[in-house]
Each structure stands twice: as structure tokens, then as C-alpha cells.
């Protein structure tokens, strides 16, 4: 069993480190210092941790104003409330106004499994991806999280970063460098491609192992940037492997699977399976139980890949 990491730790450690050298970096939270793991940031830079209280619309607007005043605000809150409650502020004050705001959606997807659908953030990818001029990034492990935070801090422009609390193994080497809009091929393969992001990437690698045992060669693509999508990597996967399984810790409508389907259906129609929460409010349950229920597991992905390959053989 490999070590497991909470990506929020990498987020906060990196932010504290960057803030030491860059006075412009501030954090804006909605009483979410603890859930964003920003206690250490607040201790190191008390004036630069701005807690607006339970007021997400204000939080995002304040972030935009801080950016107007030359700051680099990391606006950090539980993803369902950041993206849901403040959606219009994200659209108008951040993306359309083109302000240098870094939106950090914490504990997304099914992270708050037991708390129920009000706290499940399965719509955030679709909502964020629909907004022009907003880069949408879902890091898969602590190494990628650190890389994304470094990139966001050093790049001018609006970005949404979806940061998980579910402990995950490292899937990248220490020398990995994140580039926006670039997918990474974590496993080569020729029969089918597993396309994932975030906490499901390690599960995709495990699925590829299982498929290999059955003689199915599965490529694994980590797609950290949902918008803009890595067209070249996806078109190559479609052309070279002939089948695509997407899996995301989100609704099947409008997120990673939707983005890939939009691309492939117009440019290179390819059989697909889209795994995620199938357009329902999920029941209560642990994150792990819910991921299992919706087939967001190594076996779920392997099964979908098998289906695609067998359908091709039968045809």
C-alpha cells in the first residue's frame, strides 16, 4: 500500500511558501480557514488572511477588488458554496472582468459524502467549464497540486482549482511540471484510453493494471486542465486507441466527459463511456461508498473499458 496524501496540505504548504517571497499573495475565506487548511497561513501572515465570514458572494467580489488593488488573492472555500452561491460573481467579477483571482474549490465532488447533496459538489466542473476566460484545473496528487498553485501564483488571470481532501497516492514523479492545457500520459496503451482527473487518476492506473492482466492495453491520460482541454492528446488517444472511457468525481453532465465528448463528436467520433454521477442527487454515504456506487473505481473503469473493447470486437 502506497502512502496517501491530502492535497490540501500541499496547497497550504505551497501557499505559505510562496507568500514569503510575494507580498501580493493573500487568502480570502468564508469562515473556511480550517477546512481550507489555512491556519498556518493565517499564523504566518495574519493581515493577509481575510475572512469575510459566511458570505460567498462578498468573498468572491472582495477577491476581485483585492486583485484590482494589485493583490494576488487565493479565494478558498468549500467548492459547493464557492461555485454555487457565488456563480454570478465568478462569472462577472472574476472571469468576465478578467481579474487575477485564484478560486480554490475545496473538498469537491463527493468529499462530503455523508453530509448529503447540499454539500456534494458534483456540478462545479460543469458550471466552471461553461464560463469563458476561466481556466479550470483539477490536480490529481500533492505534487500536481503544488505545481498548479505555483503556476497560478505566477500567471496573471482567472483560474479555478479544484482541491480534494480525499487521501490519494502520488501519481506523479517529483520532477513533474504542470503545464496548463497539457494532459499527461501516465500509462501507454493501444486498445482503449482511460481519461481522468483528480482523485480518480490513481484508480485509473489500477484499472489499467487489471486490464493488462486480461490482455487489454489501456492508455491512461491525466487531464488536469478541463478548460482549455488538451485537444492533441485526446485526438491522439481517440485515433490510436479507438475507445475512450472518461471518469470524474462529478455529474456526467458537462464536466470532463462532456468536454471530451464535445471535442471527439465533432472532430473524431469515437466510442465513449462517461463515468460519473448519473444525473441524480447522490444518497448519503462515505466518499468511498459513493464512488463505488457510481462505478468510480478501478473495477468500474476497467468494466467500462472492457465493454468498449468487446463492442469493437463484436462489430
Amino acid at each position, binding site marked *: 500500500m502506497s502512502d496517501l496524501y491530502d492535497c490540501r496540505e500541499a496547497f497550504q504548504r505551497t501557499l505559505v511558501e510562496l507568500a514569503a517571497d510575494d507580498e501580493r499573495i493573500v487568502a480570502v475565506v468564508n469562515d473556511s480557514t480550517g477546512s481550507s487548511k489555512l491556519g498556518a497561513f493565517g499564523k504566518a501572515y495574519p493581515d493577509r488572511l481575510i475572512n*469575510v465570514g459566511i458570505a460567498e458572494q*462578498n468573498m468572491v467580489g472582495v477577491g476581485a477588488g483585492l486583485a484590482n488593488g494589485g493583490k494576488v488573492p487565493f479565494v478558498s472555500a468549500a467548492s459547493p458554496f464557492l461555485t454555487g452561491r457565488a456563480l*454570478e460573481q465568478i462569472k*462577472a467579477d472574476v472571469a468576465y472582468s478578467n481579474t487575477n483571482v485564484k478560486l480554490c474549490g475545496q473538498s469537491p465532488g463527493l468529499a462530503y459524502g455523508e453530509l448529503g447533496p447540499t454539500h456534494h459538489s458534483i456540478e462545479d466542473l460543469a458550471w466552471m467549464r461553461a464560463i469563458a476566460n476561466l481556466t479550470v484545473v483539477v490536480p490529481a496528487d500533492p505534487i500536481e497540486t503544488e505545481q498548479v498553485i505555483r503556476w497560478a501564483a505566477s500567471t496573471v488571470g482567472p483560474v479555478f482549482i479544484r482541491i480534494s481532501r480525499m487521501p490519494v497516492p502520488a501519481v506523479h514523479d517529483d520532477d513533474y511540471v504542470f503545464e496548463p492545457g497539457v494532459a499527461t500520459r501516465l500509462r501507454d496503451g493501444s486498445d482503449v484510453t482511460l481519461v481522468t482527473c483528480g482523485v480518480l487518476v490513481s484508480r485509473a492506473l489500477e484499472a489499467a493494471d487489471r486490464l493488462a492482466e486480461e490482455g487489454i492495453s489501456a492508455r491512461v491520460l491525466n487531464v488536469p486542465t478541463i478548460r482549455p482541454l488538451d485537444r492533441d492528446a485526446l485526438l491522439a488517444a481517440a485515433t490510436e486507441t479507438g475507445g475512450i472511457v472518461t471518469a470524474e468525481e462529478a455529474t456526467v453532465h458537462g464536466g470532463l466527459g462532456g468536454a471530451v465528448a464535445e471535442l471527439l463528436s465533432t472532430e473524431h467520433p469515437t466510442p465513449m463511456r462517461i463515468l460519473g454521477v448519473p444525473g441524480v442527487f447522490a444518497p448519503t454515504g462515505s466518499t468511498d461508498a459513493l464512488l463505488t456506487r457510481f462505478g468510480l473505481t478501478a473495477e468500474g473503469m476497467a468494466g467500462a473499458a472492457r465493454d468498449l473493447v468487446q463492442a469493437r470486437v463484436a462489430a
Partner: protein
Amino acid sequence: MSTTTNSPTADELRSRAASIRGRNLQMVQAAGLGHPGGDLSAADIVTTLYFSVLNVDPENPEAPGRDRYIQSKGHASGVLYTALAQRGFIPEALLDEYMAEGSPLNGHPDRNKVAGVETNTGPLGHGMPVAVGCALAAKLDGASWRTYVLTGDGELQEGSNWEAFMSAAHYDLDNLVVIVDRNRLQQGARTEDTNGLDPLDDKLAAFGWAVREIDGNSVDELLDTFAAVPFVPGKPSAIIANTKKGRGVSFMEDRVEWHHKVPTPEQVEQALTELSA
């Protein structure tokens, strides 16, 4: 200090406001679109700010130490664009393209297309939170520039304003000034017949603001009031500017339909005659 290099007299500001009103109405008439009622109620406030109060430089619209003017009532883009043009931020000829296809002068302002615009407004209740962020940035830097935000009164029905009002007081933002264009009309009816705001002064005071209520169509009162900012050290300043929608044009004043009614060429002529009187 928040002053411009050449301070016009009150008479000069009144004349400037009349000129802005007239050009604004011509623009709305030519576009066939606009929100002239709310443009005209705010014209004296916007004129006084741009020509006497704000430390801004059309040659360097993004100077870090500039005062920020945030117009939360984005639908009153007509008065904003006219003031920006007459203050030299954008060419006056550009006003002829108000809301034309592909024009930078959208119905609601876009900071990425129009110099001098600080944030993109239009949906209501967005300006106050952004203004709080601006004022916080100045405080963090120990900088002396101020943030001024103009809201409509109807728009105070949006809860986001009150989140921001709380924050401003919590952070002791005495470098922040809100001017409420209290014309008592919103798109469909009187504010007090829709979702009443009174007693607005008490509400703002209860939220921790130092409040003054003035005639928002009086340049003299506006000048005196802006000169007194911050009204109380350590507190954000709120100006309830009692105005008339459509102010300055007899047939438009205090009439709800002029929220977004477009004047005919003949009506514009009559308005110009009244404004030059």
C-alpha cells in the same frame, strides 16, 4: 489627497453636469437603448466625482495609486461613458457607437474595453463587494487612495450589498465611500412599494457606517460632503444621495417609465433646451 489638479467651481460643475446630461440623452436616442432615468439621477454625483474628487489620470488610467470609482449600477453606463469621454479617458466620438454592434461601449461597462472602468457591472449587487476588496488592498499597503462606489437604491435589495456593508465596517474601511443614488424608483415601481428600504440611514448606521443624507442633485452639497470623508475616522462613509430619476428634464423627472424609455429626437431637443436654460 483625493483631488484633481484643477478644481472647477461649483458653477463649472453644474454646467459640466448639464453638458453630460445632454450628450447622454443624445447617445441614448441614437442607440435606441439605454437607461436614461438612472443616468440623469446620478449625473451630478458622477460629474462631481470625476471632475473634482477622484484622483485619476486619463493618461495613466491604471496608475496603482489612483482612486477607484466603481459604478455598481452598471445599467447607468450612459452617464459613466459620457463622463469618461468628457474627462478624456475615451474619445468623445466613441459615444456615437453606444451599444452599436461590436462597439466597446456595451450596455453595461467592460473594463477590458473601456479605459477607466474598474470592474464589469450589470448584474446588481456586485460593486460593493469589489469595492471592499479594493479598500482592503489599499489598507494592506498603507496606501492613501480611496474607493468610491455608486449603487442604485433598488439594487440594495440584493443581499450581497449587505454582506459587503458588514465587511467594510468589520475591517474599519474609512477609505471607502458608498454613494446611494436614492431616486426611490426601480425598474417597475417605487422602491418603497416594491421591497421598502427605509429607514435606510438607520440600516446603514446599524451596519457600522457613518451616514450622511444629502440632496444628491446638489453639486454644493456633494462637494461639501466628499470633502468631509471620512465622516468618522475608522468607519466607512455612506452618502444617501436623494435624487430624482430623470433629473434636469421636466417630462422625465420622477417618472418610472424613464428607467429605460428612449427619448424621441424632439424630446431630446426639448431636453437640451431645458438643460441649457
